[in-house]
């Protein structure tokens, strides 16, 4: 029973409390680049979760035979091979989305999230917990991506998954699209706001100030 509770916390912890994007600063590059629409965000989330889980299992299986000195190269080669497979599958069956994602699928290889989790967790744990941890982190990453993608597509185009949700002013409705939402800066602002919101809800995540404000001593004199 205890083991099951353990697995459950391993799975749910990265969703909010230990979220890979907003707390661990892992995998931010792709989180921002592919969130102009919900469809690309979803594809990216699924690809990353698959790569992450499979590579965690693979590395956890060989963890006892892996010399420390060459482990980075071995891990990167495993991840790169999985990414090549995913990339080829996307090109074969989802050609349009694959073009929209351009090189960002290949960049899963150097996504710090994958290497970070295999390095920090999968290397020391049995395959099952490693897979659960990787899956949970993948879900936490997907959560952020889908929130960002949804917000940007909704306010940038008035659409969700390509369906017109808010009637556009051009077509007789009332909604004027905010094209800023589709540009790079808004992604930074939204993610900054999201970090702020999560850290206000969970104050223990806030970073300690580097400098205490100087104490006013004159009043005492």
């Amino acid at each position, binding site marked *: 029973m205890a083991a099951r509770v353990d697995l459950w916390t391993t799975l749910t912890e990265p969703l909010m409390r230990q979220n890979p994007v*907003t707390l661990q*600063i*892992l*995998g*931010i*590059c*792709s989180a*921002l*680049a592919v969130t102009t629409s919900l469809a690309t965000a979803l594809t990216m989330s699924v690809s990353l979760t698959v790569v992450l889980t499979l590579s965690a299992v693979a590395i956890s299986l060989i963890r006892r035979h892996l010399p420390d000195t060459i482990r*980075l*190269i071995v891990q*990167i*080669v495993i991840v*790169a*091979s999985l*990414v*090549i497979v995913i*990339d*080829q599958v996307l090109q074969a069956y989802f050609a349009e989305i694959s073009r929209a994602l*351009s*090189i960002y699928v*290949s*960049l899963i*290889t*150097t*996504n*710090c999230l994958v*290497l970070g989790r295999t390095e920090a967790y999968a290397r020391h744990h049995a395959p099952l917990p490693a897979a659960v941890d990787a899956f949970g982190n993948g879900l936490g990453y997907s959560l952020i991506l889908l929130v960002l993608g949804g917000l940007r597509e909704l306010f940038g185009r008035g659409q969700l998954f390509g369906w017109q949700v808010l009637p556009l002013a051009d077509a007789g409705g009332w909604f004027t699209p905010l094209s800023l939402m589709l*540009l*790079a*800066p*808004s*992604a*930074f*602002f939204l*993610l*900054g*706001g999201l*970090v*702020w*919101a*999560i*850290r*206000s809800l969970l*104050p223990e995540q*806030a*970073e300690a*100030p*580097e*400098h205490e*404000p100087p104490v006013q001593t004159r009043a005492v004199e």
Partner: protein
Amino acid sequence: MTELWTLFLSAAFVDNMPLTLFLGLCTFLALSKRPESAIGLGIAMMGVLGVTVPLNWLIYQGVLAPGAWSWAGLPELDLSYLALIAFIGVIAASVQLLEMVLDRFFPAIHAAFGSFLPLLTVQCAILAGSLFMVDRSYTLAESAVFGLGSGFGFAIAVAMLGAIRSRLAYADLPNGLRGLGIAFVLTGLMSLGFASFAQMAVSQ
């Protein structure tokens, strides 16, 4: 010559790696708390990008591109799907080599930013430099200029962010916004500024 200069400018400013293309953000945010470490990272990025992009061009054109083996009687062989593994290998090896060369001949420089070099192996901006080079089918000279330009753009952006963040260390921010949150907002503002460089490409 002017074309190469234009490519350099557009790689450095219009297609700025961290601010417009969201590449290399993890190290960009993690190492920009102090201006000194930010500048070290910037110089290391320029060196590594300037070396790996042309090197990967040679490997891609010589071994992996469709038709590269036609001299051996295998004109249909297309190994381009192996590009990813080959590029990562080249990057890891050249980062290691660069570190060893610096350690041997320029110990002062190595002491200044040597500790950032191993990190750069898993930097998405560096891998992206090589992937863009294939995507946009640059020539050898163009790919060298592109690598240097992107590295230069990254160096400028990270040095600027480092300078701003070192001033903000004394600011009284809301608790939740401190650290990562404000870094994102700052990056967003800088990215807004860099967006104006896009006009430069249009007016040329």
